[in-house]
């Protein structure tokens, strides 16, 4: 097996476990809620209208948005619970709908027969109606299972590990093997659970108690397997890592003394979902590991989600960008100078959230409009202003978050670009798209290694429409009080140059090295 594939398989127990502990209990509790609710809907028309409208309405909320909404509704809590609740909600509709259809398709003559032999209403329901509706209800549970297992991959951005970690990180790293691995693992899990439920169905119908028991045991066993590394995981996994560390430090003890100031401490590192963030998270991980701590990286988190987690101490440390915080957290529209913004952001984050801005890492990752050489020559592009006269013929690619940002509104207004066609796409595809001429301009990032890899030109911004984006080390209120942690992270400040960051990004994106290897070489420079 190739070493890359081995790496993917090594992560499988944890991620599969996380996936199972989310999906299976969500479906199980979904059944417990939906079945009685479906029965009530059949028995009472007054309940049915509102319940069905609400359930169908919730189902139309895009799943990734529903997960994010759950984080907000739970007051910024990230991880298992928001993901679990969103999945639970998704499981309800198919089960409730099939319960209603199943009960209503019971032959009225059967209902009358049940009444005529002397059954009371509840006896009619449990002895005749539900057993006869059972195959249809079970079909609903199977639909819910396939949905929930698929949607559970979207738990990754809200900080709950799942098989989606392969897909999200694979997309960012342009590692298709990783993406496909995640998809195949998810599909396999769907099929296995679906078939187990099918076995339960046939064994109930043909009264085979042994195969029923076996299928039930298999499902319980799967969840139990998930719980062991998943829920007990932080301690269990942390324990084994500590053991490794102890072994290592024993080794290093023999070669020389190593001060381990974070011994026994778990430090949670938050990261968003792009290459640079993966590398920075690895840098933080390495620093914390070197100090004897137990780092836990929660990557692929959304901007607001990771920020709220930081404020709530569920994430301890995170590298943010001043411009992003300025607009999305502090809701400011007009940018100010780089130094002033850093000071203002630091002051307000501390006052309003208790978050401490420990300092800048040294580089800036700002937005940059980029174009390929042919386009530059054709339209004589030197700066963003040159786009204005030809805007209505041009297409600009950017990630969907970008087009929603006030910075883009500002650029559009200052350079009169309202006629340009916006094409939202994942940043993974953006550089390729602009290099191929599928879009004329792309909203890239100044540290992105692909700017050089694809030989793209950066358009100047003479009106300073884009605000400054200093990479800053942010500590949660609790982490900021942890002197040992601050002491461990301080050496990182003002040490990473734009060039070094761009090289590290390029090595991951273009040369295919892992973020950890890139982080290693960045630290060792």
């Amino acid at each position: 097996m190739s070493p890359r594939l081995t790496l993917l398989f090594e992560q499988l127990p944890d991620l599969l476990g996380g996936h199972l502990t989310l999906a299976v209990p969500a479906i199980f509790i979904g059944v417990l809620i939906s079945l009685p609710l479906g029965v009530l809907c059949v028995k009472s028309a007054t309940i049915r209208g509102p319940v069905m409208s609400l359930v169908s309405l919730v189902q139309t909320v895009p799943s990734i948005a529903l997960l994010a909404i759950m984080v907000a509704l739970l007051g910024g809590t990230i991880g298992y619970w928001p993901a679990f609740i969103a999945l639970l909600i998704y499981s309800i509709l198919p089960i409730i709908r099939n319960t209603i259809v199943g009960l209503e398709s019971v032959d009225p003559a059967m209902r009358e027969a049940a009444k005529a032999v002397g059954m009371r209403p509840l006896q009619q329901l449990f002895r005749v109606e539900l057993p006869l509706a059972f195959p249809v209800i079970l079909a609903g549970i199977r639909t819910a299972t396939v949905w929930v297992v698929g949607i559970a991959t979207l738990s990754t951005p809200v900080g709950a590990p799942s098989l989606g970690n392969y897909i999200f990180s694979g997309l960012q790293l342009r590692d298709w093997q990783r993406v496909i691995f995640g998809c195949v693992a998810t599909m396999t899990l769907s099929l296995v659970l679906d078939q187990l439920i099918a076995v339960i169905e046939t064994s109930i119908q043909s009264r085979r108690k042994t195969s029923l028991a076996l299928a039930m045991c298999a499902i319980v066993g799967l969840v139990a397997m998930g719980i062991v590394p998943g829920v007990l995981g932080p301690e269990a996994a942390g324990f084994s890592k500590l053991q490794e560390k102890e072994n290592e430090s024993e080794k290093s003890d023999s070669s020389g003394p190593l001060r381990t100031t974070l011994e026994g401490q778990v430090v949670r590192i938050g990261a968003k979902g792009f290459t640079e963030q993966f590398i920075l998270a690895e840098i933080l991980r390495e620093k914390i590991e070197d100090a004897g701590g137990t780092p836990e990286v929660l990557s692929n988190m959304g901007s607001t989600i990771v920020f709220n987690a930081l404020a709530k101490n569920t994430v301890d440390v995170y590298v943010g960008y001043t411009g992003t915080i300025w607009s999305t957290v502090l809701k400011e529209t007009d940018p100010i100078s780089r130094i002033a913004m850093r000071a203002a952001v630091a002051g307000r984050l501390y006052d309003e959230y208790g978050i401490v801005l420990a300092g800048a890492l040294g580089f800036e990752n700002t937005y940059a409009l980029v174009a390929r050489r042919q386009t530059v020559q054709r339209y004589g592009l030197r700066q963003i202003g040159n786009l204005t006269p030809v805007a209505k013929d041009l297409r600009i690619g950017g990630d969907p978050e970008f087009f929603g940002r006030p910075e883009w509104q500002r650029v559009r207004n200052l350079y009169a670009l309202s006629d340009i066609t916006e094409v939202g796409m994942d940043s993974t595809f953006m550089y390729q798209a602009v290099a191929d001429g599928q879009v004329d301009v792309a909203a890239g990032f100044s540290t992105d290694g692909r700017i050089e890899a694809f030989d793209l030109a950066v358009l100047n911004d003479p009106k300073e429409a884009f605000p400054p984006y200093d990479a800053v080390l942010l500590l949660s209120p609790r982490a900021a009080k942890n002197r040992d942690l601050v002491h461990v992270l301080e050496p990182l400040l003002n040490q990473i140059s734009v060039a070094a960051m761009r090289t590290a990004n390029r090595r991951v994106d273009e040369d295919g090295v892992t973020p950890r290897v890139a982080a290693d070489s960045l630290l060792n420079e």
Partner: protein
Amino acid sequence: MNMHVPAIELVSLTKCFGNSVEPAVKSVDLSVAQGEVLAIVGGSGSGKTTTLKMINRLIEPTSGSVKVMGEDVTNVDPVGLRRSIGYAFQGVGLFPHMSVGQNVGVTLQLLGWTKNSIIERVNELLTMVDLPADEYRDRLPSELSGGQQQRVGFARALASKPQAILMDEPFGALDPITRDALQQEFRSLQKKLELSVVLVTHDMSEAVLLADRIAVMHKGEIAQVASPQVLLTSPVNAYVAQLIDTPRRHSDFIESLLHGKASGGAR
């Protein structure tokens, strides 16, 4: 037990459905003596099934009363009432997810009989309807023929040793030979157990063969109640005459065939 109390007595029983002005059943008076078979005959929409279902309160009457063994059923728990009256359905009505044994024993289970006494009674009933218990008890209804299903239906209706049973077109879906055999068996069982029976059918021949008395219903009302002989000889109106004419013509025709006097006119 007073043998003079009718098993079932209907007094000016009326049912109006929803908003319809015309009642489905219009002040019907009927009584069924203990051990008697009463057939209710009529076309579709004559109100015969509605009348039957009001007896065990599957349908609640709009007005009038129903007495079972002299007791007004509007005052008793309808569930208890249904458990004490057997019911054999049009299209059998066996529960497809339960075995033959479970179907037969369902009312007994609802009545809280012990497991062993249920098994014993189910075996007895299956033997009574000519289905060897060991062979049939654990089969599903779908594994039986139509006639066998109907036998199971009878066994279920008889399970709680009811005084009275209600039957709604019980022989409707059977082939003629099976139907004939089952009708014979039903008649002998009924005599043996001295059952009081209300039998709803649209088939006058069946009513003539099985019933002690026949009530002809037309447009929600009783047109005539009489023994088969009286109906044949003195129908009260043209409708009754037309209904009773069918079995008469059939038997006349068969008779003439047997005596070689068939003519083109007797169809």
